[in-house]
């Protein structure tokens, strides 16, 4: 079975995000970028499936600026077999929207015919949480989102999901789309020798035009603001005062 994993290049989770002066988005100029952590989990899961013998080949796909090939190299260094880069923007600030990404992925999937797609449940930059679902709809495939555990049984994937109030296990017939949640696994570090070998693994460079997909944004960003600064706390003199404040001022009791 071939497993396809889409990966997105996003602002590194350790970086303190700053909003651009004009409020059009987060400033990404000269900011450290990395693979979306949920996608890293998806790559790890694909590698584990391969190690267990449930998958033969892992193809990673990234859509965005040219520099996304660094993200693909990271996935190759972790253990993916080959990569496809779809260049769809010149400016690092251009975010390709989920529908366009899903359309491009559908085109790739039509060519590659994978038995399973594992994607991150969402990207940490815009938190859309939509691409996997849209892709399932476009392909007419089954989907299992927020996976905390995946087991392959023949042509069925048994997926355990974290839901409100507990765990839910469902079976989805493959080919299918599974999106990875935080607790699915803990991704490995790419070893240094594998980082070197990754450079020799195949990486196909394509453009959005090659697939005839229009990536022009449909959404308009009205404003981007930083979270309000934390206000200083107050010291209370007694437990009674605390309870009164929680009741009357904070309204939480």
């Amino acid at each position, binding site marked *: 079975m071939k497993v396809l994993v889409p990966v997105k290049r996003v602002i590194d989770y350790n970086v303190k995000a700053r909003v651009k002066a004009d409020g059009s988005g987060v400033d990404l100029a000269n900011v450290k970028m990395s693979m979306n952590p949920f996608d890293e989990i998806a790559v790890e899961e694909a590698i584990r499936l391969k190690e267990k013998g449930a998958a033969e080949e892992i193809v990673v796909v990234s859509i965005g600026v040219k520099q996304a090939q660094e993200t693909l*190299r990271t996935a190759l260094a972790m253990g993916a077999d080959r990569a496809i880069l779809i260049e769809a923007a010149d400016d690092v600030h251009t975010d390709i929207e989920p529908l366009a990404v899903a359309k491009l992925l559908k085109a790739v999937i039509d060519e590659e015919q994978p038995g399973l797609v594992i994607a991150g449940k969402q990207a940490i930059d815009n938190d859309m949480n939509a691409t996997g679902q849209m892709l399932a709809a476009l392909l007419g495939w089954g989907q299992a989102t927020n996976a905390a555990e995946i087991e392959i049984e023949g042509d069925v994937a048994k997926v355990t999901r974290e839901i409100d109030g507990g765990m839910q296990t469902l079976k989805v017939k493959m080919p299918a789309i599974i999106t990875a949640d935080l607790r699915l696994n803990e991704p490995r*570090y790419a070893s*240094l020798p594998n*980082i*070197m070998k990754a450079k020799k693994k195949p990486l196909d460079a394509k453009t959005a035009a090659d697939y005839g997909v229009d990536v022009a944004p449909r959404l308009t960003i009205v404003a981007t603001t930083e979270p309000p600064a934390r206000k200083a706390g107050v010291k209370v003199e007694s437990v009674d005062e605390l309870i009164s404040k929680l009741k009357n001022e904070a309204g939480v009791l």
Partner: protein
Amino acid sequence: MANAGVDDDIFEALLETVERFVRERLIPAEPTVEENDEIPADIVAEMKAMGLFGISIGEEYGGLGLSTMQEARLIEALCNASLVFRSLIGTTVGIGSQGIVMDGTEAQKREWLPKLATGEAISAFALTEPDYGSDASRIKTSARREGDDFIINGTKRYITNAPYASVFTLMARSNPEISGARGISAFIVPADTPGITVAKPDKKMGQRGAKTADVIFENVRVPAASIVGGPENEGKGFVTAMKVLDRGRVHISAMATGTSQRMLNEATDYAMDRKTMEKPIAEHQLVQAMLADCQTEIYAMRSLAHMAAKLYDEKGAAPMEAACAKYFTTEAAGRIADRCVQIFGGAGYMAEYAIERLYRDVRLLRIYEGTSQIQQTTIAKGLVKRRAEQR
């Protein structure tokens, strides 16, 4: 000769991975290492899997083949975490592998380098003896020839990684007629060779989790073919050690820089948070002076380490420059450790803060791989010799 190194884009990816490993795995494990006097087994396994043991071994033997400059940058990043982690790979990255890389026979390279590169075999360097440290060329451990074999007898002291070692690079006197350096050969001795006893690990001031111990050799029989470079290299052990030394001194300069940056980061964070007289101490001028002195010295340390590394990569040797770098950077690290504890004030004396541990750990840098005083004499001899050639 120095490794050519890897492509820049690959190196940046390697560096980024090590930085992340340091931040996410090594630094959080430091208190456990200190508490248990041992690096947790899962971290050791991860360090091996990551390929850290093989950074100075060529790609053809399963390593990375970093240039000296790249090694310096990677080691600086690694030493943002406790020096204890670096200590585990240090003896393999240094003479353990480099002795074989530079002077080993093809058979020795094929036998040992792939195992060393993955950390499957950990190497220790057995040079220092109870009576001989800085005057290492006078060591007494004897290697008596018996047919095609040598019989080794003697005691080695403060041998880093001895309890973990699967192989020793052992310096022993193969020719009793010659009392100096030319009577010494370097032997590759598997640790399970009969007659080798590793004593109880030493109790140290700092670097808990890094192990040193005495190693006793009693009638240890090794073939002449185990001399680094084969039997024809008998008596050249010191030449091999000297060749490796320059690179080792650049490596230590990078360590000193990395751990100093860590200490300054700790002290700066503290100075920004800690308030006295109703403002952060980072705004008090005398604290600012200490912060500025640390930063300035770190900039000088890094520059010096990189200059020496570059020279070594170009020329294959940099004895005086590497000694200057080792001397300056390790002494500066001592000053920085002292200032950083001072910035912490009373808290800096408490084991609750990492700076107390880092302060103790860093003390060793001025002592091992050539004390500051040995570096000074090397530097002075080097410059007098150069001046004599110029006049």
